């Protein structure tokens, strides 16, 4: 940690920032100042209302690890976030005493912000202009970049709140720089400036068949909804989804693809899923998980003499591949776990999981057995990606801690 106080500021080597993110707060029209001094992790803030100007001293420069999670609405981002924050320990909860409709989740280590908060057009504005929330024209990427960059550099921001119930932009909330910042939403990898400051990025790629099945499950009981309305909504949004959301997957370090099963011929119920974890090779601090032998091509049916599975069974595949012209490793699971011993058996055959103890994947899956997807590849791969992100974070922190020591020795 930095030893950074006002009295010793002369001894600091360029780890203090003075920044005036004017656009950050311009929409508020205030001109009062807030100064935040970081004192070795603790923060004494003199609040004068808003944050047009901030002085920050942080340990060795940037100290927040930023993760991007992209997916369409209703495709499991919330569940993924709950699994991810659980891997880091401690439950993520909305900010205390804040706007009850805030989209932010905060735990000891992690803050999750929803990128819908950067809508530049509210619901009425989008209706008037005839654009969807998927359209970049409805989003303020300048403000998104400024605020994510500020948080990465250890500077608190006043982030707007998009209220999903009223469709209006509510007064902003103060977001302090966390150890890990997750930005989740429709466009975390759309703007190249935002994309470049991500330490790791994930795309949840839900096939059309599964998306339809999930939305039926979510909406069918809702008054006014019917199969026709669910279908109409998906189809109306599809051109914008294809144009602005889907292309982001080429930039992701990890993609979780959710497809219908191939274990049941002509299955279109969407009950059994085939899930692929596409992991980019050569990403710093991230080494892909593998099955049996790194880099080989493997097809594995764990059910047999040693392990009995019920219909339709479980099938794994692993191997190298290319994804948008880049080298990747792909791990695939088709089918679902019905019993604990199946999960443990599978975990014991996977390598490079970044677990801290034997059985940690199984433990995490059991802890959240009530979450959607806990018995199939979506839960398994989300948990694995959570463990890889914890490992990435720990490597970055360890490297930062080592750097000043080396500098002092030299």
């Amino acid at each position: 940690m930095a030893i950074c106080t006002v009295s010793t500021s002369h001894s600091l080597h360029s780890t203090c920032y003075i920044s005036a993110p004017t656009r950050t707060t311009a929409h508020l029209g205030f001109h009062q100042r807030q100064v935040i001094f970081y004192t070795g992790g603790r923060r004494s803030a003199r609040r004068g209302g808003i944050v047009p100007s901030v002085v920050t001293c942080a340990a060795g420069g940037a100290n927040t690890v930023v993760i991007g999670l992209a997916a369409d609405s209703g495709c499991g981002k919330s569940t993924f976030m709950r699994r991810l924050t659980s891997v880091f320990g401690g439950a993520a909860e909305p900010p205390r005493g804040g706007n009850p409709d805030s989209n932010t989740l905060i735990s000891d280590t992690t803050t999750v912000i929803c990128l819908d908060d950067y809508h530049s057009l509210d619901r009425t504005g989008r209706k008037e202009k005839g654009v969807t929330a998927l359209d970049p024209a409805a989003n303020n990427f300048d403000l998104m970049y400024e605020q994510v960059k500020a948080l990465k550099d250890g500077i608190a921001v006043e982030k707007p709140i998009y209220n999903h119930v009223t469709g209006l932009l509510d007064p902003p909330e103060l977001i302090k720089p966390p150890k890990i910042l997750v930005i989740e939403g429709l466009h975390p990898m759309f703007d190249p400036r935002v994309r470049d400051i991500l330490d790791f990025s994930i795309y949840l790629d839900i096939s059309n068949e599964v998306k339809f099945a999930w939305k039926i499950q979510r909406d069918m009981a809702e008054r006014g909804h019917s199969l026709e309305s669910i279908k109409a909504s998906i189809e109306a949004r599809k051109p914008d989804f294809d144009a602005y959301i889907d292309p982001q997957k080429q930039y992701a370090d990890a993609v979780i693809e959710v497809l219908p099963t191939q274990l049941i011929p002509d299955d279109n119920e969407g009950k059994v899923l085939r899930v692929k974890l596409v992991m980019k090779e050569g990403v710093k601090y991230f080494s892909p998980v593998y099955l049996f032998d790194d880099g080989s091509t493997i097809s594995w049916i764990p059910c047999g003499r040693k392990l009995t599975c019920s219909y339709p069974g479980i099938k794994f595949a692993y191997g190298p591949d290319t994804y948008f012209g880049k080298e990747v490793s792909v791990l695939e699971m088709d089918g679902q776990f019905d019993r604990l011993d199946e999960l443990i058996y599978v975990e014991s055959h996977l390598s490079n999981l970044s677990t801290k103890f034997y059985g940690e994947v199984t433990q995490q899956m059991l802890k959240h057995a009530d979450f959607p997807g806990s018995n199939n590849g979506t839960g398994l791969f989300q948990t694995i990606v959570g463990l890889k992100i914890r490992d990435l974070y720990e490597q970055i922190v360890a490297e930062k801690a080592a750097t000043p020591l080396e500098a002092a020795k030299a």
Partner: protein
Amino acid sequence: MATTLAGVSVSTARAAPAAGATRPVTTPRAAFPLVRFPRRAGSRLAFARAAATGPATPSNISDKVSESIKAAEEACAGDPVSGECVAAWDEVEELSAAASHARDKLKGSDPLENYCKDNPEADECRTYED
């Protein structure tokens, strides 16, 4: 570990909020369990998800969802690819997602659970392993 919900697929009617008089009294929550329940007898693993039942959507959001669907159907009657039509269906998606999140929030708001979060040592919060 919780007891296993072996082979159960329930479709229980959710109580509808006491809002307008013209509305039906109950809204059945359709059973579309994507997650198959464990079939094996004696399984201790509660992988099952009690997806079939859950709290009802708060009436203010529920009203907005049904109104937005009507508005979208009207907006698309003339031109099914117009910006107006697409934006209207996008609003339906946004409100449907908000309704789902609101139900999830209610699911987690058991008064005893909330009390026990702050007072884990209290008698009524003790749990027993068998």
